[in-house]
């Protein structure tokens, strides 16, 4: 029925099956929208956040999905700036995933602030000294870039492409995509970094604070680096997941291998830097403020040293080693395990840099603050995930996202 919209020569599942799936995910979206409306109408008392937990699940979700969405800028950077041409076979999907991640982040931010109607004050009354201002500007601008990168894809839809203007527009945008990609990379470098800076500049929070370079704490660079390392992993993860769901090979192994190898190198170097950073913080920064390393991992029922091991070893060293070994990359199970662990690793990193920062008591007469999100927070966090699945599903069905699909599935 919708075959006129499906790219020529590609096979898709039946429309009934497709929209049944969409409807199921749509139900989750509706649940999330209900929670979102509750929060907007009744206020943030619908959450379990409190005066010690001003930043919680949502901010983690933001940081997490932006790190995961980093595949878009870094793949773009590799494709357009470095000239890794093979990556054109996966860049489209990286852009779609990035678009979904960034759109989600913006939505969550819109729910998270106490006065959404005044959200634009962050632009208009900008405090250039705040990392959050930098985040907001770069994030919004980069989202604009992602939209620009996504538009030509949309315009490639069989029906839209028939319109000469759109065809020309898409063509022209393709022509100068390198400029957009370069701007995107520039913006991403700053907003990924400033997201790291958000925690690193908190000099009142010994768990978060880091020394750094000029105005940028080390977390600034670590976040950019980790986004570049772990973002492509998420692209590979979603690609592999899509292949499993559709039962089709969509991207050639050499492309996967190249991206995985680069991610492996980024991750390996990142994790070394992260270990050095942690070491320096534990032995110099924290003690100078009167804390021992274990102060941050004891006296509470949740945040033990396990979380650091999970982040650095399980979610960092192990996937990096797998991705760095040609054998690991060529084994599809190993590869999938590696990228999954990597995604978990970066999500743990973002978690501790938000939630553990809040949980750890700084004043000697306070105790650890532990927090469990309310269902409204969970629902609104799942909302963009469900929404993203729908966007990705629609994009896959109606747009020629994978240039190699036809070749691989004759």
């Amino acid at each position, binding site marked *: 029925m919708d075959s006129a919209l499906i790219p020529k020569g590609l096979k898709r599942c039946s429309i009934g099956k497709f929209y049944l799936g969409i409807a199921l995910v749509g139900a989750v979206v509706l649940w999330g929208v209900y929670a979102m409306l509750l929060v907007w109408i009744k206020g943030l008392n619908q959450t379990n956040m409190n005066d010690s937990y001003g930043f919680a699940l949502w901010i983690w979700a933001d940081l997490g999905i932006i790190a995961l969405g980093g595949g878009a800028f870094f793949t773009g950077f590799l494709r357009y700036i470095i000239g890794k041409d093979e990556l054109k076979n996966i860049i489209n999907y990286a852009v779609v995933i990035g678009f979904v991640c960034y759109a989600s982040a913006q939505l969550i931010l819109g729910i998270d602030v106490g*006065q959404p*109607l*005044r959200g*634009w*004050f962050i632009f208009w009354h900008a405090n250039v000294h705040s990392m959050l201002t930098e985040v907001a500007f770069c994030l919004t601008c980069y989202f604009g870039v992602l939209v620009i990168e996504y538009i030509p894809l949309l315009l490639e839809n069989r029906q839209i492409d028939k*319109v000469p*203007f759109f065809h020309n527009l898409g063509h022209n945008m393709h022509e100068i995509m390198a400029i957009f990609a370069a701007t995107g990379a520039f913006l991403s470098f700053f907003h990924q970094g400033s997201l790291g800076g958000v925690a690193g500049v908190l000099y009142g929070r010994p768990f978060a604070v880091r020394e750094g370079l000029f105005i940028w704490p080390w977390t600034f660079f670590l976040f950019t680096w980790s986004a570049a390392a772990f973002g492509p992993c998420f692209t590979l993860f979603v690609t592999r997941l899509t292949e499993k769901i559709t039962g089709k090979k969509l991207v050639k192994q050499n492309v996967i291998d190249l991206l995985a190898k680069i991610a492996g190198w980024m991750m390996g170097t990142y994790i070394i830097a992260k270990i050095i950073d942690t070491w320096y913080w534990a032995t110099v920064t924290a003690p100078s403020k009167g804390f021992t390393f274990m102060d941050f991992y004891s006296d509470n029922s949740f945040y033990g040293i396990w979380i650091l091991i999970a982040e650095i070893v399980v979610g960092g060293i192990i996937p990096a080693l797998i991705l760095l070994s040609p054998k690991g990359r060529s084994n599809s199970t190993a590869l999938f395990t590696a990228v999954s662990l990597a995604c978990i690793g970066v999500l743990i990193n973002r978690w501790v840099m938000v939630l553990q920062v809040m949980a750890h008591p700084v004043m000697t007469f306070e105790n650890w603050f532990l927090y469990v999100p309310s269902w409204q927070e969970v629902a609104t966090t799942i909302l963009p995930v469900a929404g993203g699945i729908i966007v990705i599903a629609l994009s896959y069905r109606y747009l020629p996202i994978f240039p190699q699909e036809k070749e691989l599935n004759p």
Partner: protein
Amino acid sequence: MKVGRRSFLSFIIGGAAGTAITPLPWKLMDDASIWSQNWPWTPVPPDGEYSYVNSVCTLCPGGCGISVRKVDDRVVKIEGMKGYPVNAGGICVLGLSGHQLLYSPTRVKSPLKRVGKRGEGKWEKISWDEAISEVAKKLSEIRSKGESHSVGSIVNADSGTIPNLFKRFLTAYGSPNFMTMPSMQDSYKMTLQLMQGVNAQAGFDAENADFILSFGSGIIDGWGSPVRMFKANSTWKANGKKVVQIEPRLSNTAAKSDKWIPIKPGTEAALALGLANVIITNSQHSQKISQSSGFESFKKLVQNEYSTDKVSQITGIDSASIVSLAKTFASASKPLAICGRGQGSTPGSLNEFMAVHALNALVGNINEQGGVWAVPEVDYIKWPEVNLDETATNGVQKERVDGAGSEYPHAKSLLNRLAEVVNSGDGSLEALFVTGANPLYSMPDSKAMKKAFDSIPFVVSFSSYMDETASNSDLILPNHVCLERYEDVPTTAGLQKNIIGLTRPVVKPQFSTKNVGDTIMLIAKALGGSIAEAFPWDSYEACLKETLGAKWDVLVENGFWSDSNSKTVSGEFNFYPKAMESLSNFSPVSLEGSTASYPLVLIPYDSIRLANGYIGDPPFVIKAVEDTVLNGKAACVEVNPKTGKELGLTEGRYASLHTPRGKAKVKVHLYEGIMPGIIALPRGLGHTAYDKYLAGKGCNFNELIGPAEDPVSGLDAAWGIRARLTKV
């Protein structure tokens, strides 16, 4: 359908782009944020003319001067009055929240007549005329039956014009049953009577003392006039004076003292006598005291019965500490011993007061600088004698229902006995007036009190608020709150000199309320005859002006009148036989309950952040209560971690607290500052009346404890009760 897809799309995209470059979306965005900055449901306090009015706070007996900040005719803030002799600009949490009481939703807004069952909360608004004639009708009926003595009144205090108007009314009407809310002042008064033979209040020259030995008095927890004591405490700190606190719990006072000596609760009198023994043995006592009558028998008593070792055993304090404490106390140049547990809201054991007073006498500080003074009651109320008609003459000669003056000859009022007497059928009341008091909440064994009230056919409350007593009455004739009325406030809370403050209307009455002084006079006038004649004044204000005479102008001008030269009643201290008899028969107040079923001892503690008298905590004050005192809907019981471990109780978990008198669901707060085996519960929680900000929070300590009659005074001597704490 000739509109092509292309032109349609162009229209949409062009339209969107076109709108975006118009000012419309930007304007809407701006308007939305302006709306969010001016949400109509967020109040905008109106501006107006600013002014200050000085008055006196009546929310507790402390009698602090207040400066009330007004904007037009609205009270916006209450501050301490600078230069006021009691509080010198300082103020407490309750005084600061007085304006919340003024505008409180829990106020009784007009006279109310009960229509449902008592306590059901169904009321009918009636006019003042109806209300007055209702009371007059009822009282006439009772009087005509010759039962005038069966009308009683419960009043917050016995000094000042309002209590005296009530007293006068009962006298003219023909009843002896004028009852007041008990406090440690009752015990102190009786002590002065028995040991110095004077009718006076105890005043403490605290500021000039240099060694303060406190037997559980909450110096900074609300004892005496709270703000004045805070200031005295700071003065001591600044001048290096020492405070020793004796009590089983690390209270705020104990924590701020120079030395905290934990003691087995209830053995304070033994310690005082033991200290006396050491002082006498070391001949550190004053020369004067050794010449007082009965000294030798006192000496013999303490030497025989209160040897240091024995006292050590009784009190749990090691002998060396007792000896050294006695030495330091006696060698201080201006030592002062005080008692009255916590805020002194219960009278306590008379022997304890006498033992402590004897200690003061031993070091010769009675009526001396830095010591205990016998302060005469200020006698500005000089009304003509009441002409009693025959009914009245007969009535006032009847025995009081509470046994004060008969069974207990020294007592003036024994409200603590009322419940038992009424419930056991030994006495009865036909009608009861309650003003400035909330006995159904604040008397021990409040459930028994409620039962007693249930058997009184006609209960009239004059409360400004829908408190526990008001909501269980038949008729409410609401008084103005203190920011709306005139009243004289003679401050009695342990001050060393007579001070009268003037409470005055700061704003006009918010509701259809009446000064209780006017109300009582209207009732008298409605009754007619000699009762009406006893009240020759046109209004309460006229009465007040006439009563205060020349002081009135001073009061209006300064807000207070104080005795220019401090006066004391010069009654020589002696170990009079009556007192000695009592002291030698001394045995600690026994605790209700068996050790087997109630292995722990429950004591109350007072906090300045918890009002436990007539007034309940206003919203601001309850907000300031710590989460280790009130947690959600549960009061927290303090348990030593060792005891907690034995009982398997951990921090913050629910437990069930049982005493012989009642039970409550509480939360456990493990506290290193409490003696193992003892548990403590805050007073002032567990209201069932008032508003949602106070009602239903925590449990009322008074529901868990019963009164214990002091054998000499008849006053309530209970300081705790046996208890059991179990996991739930």
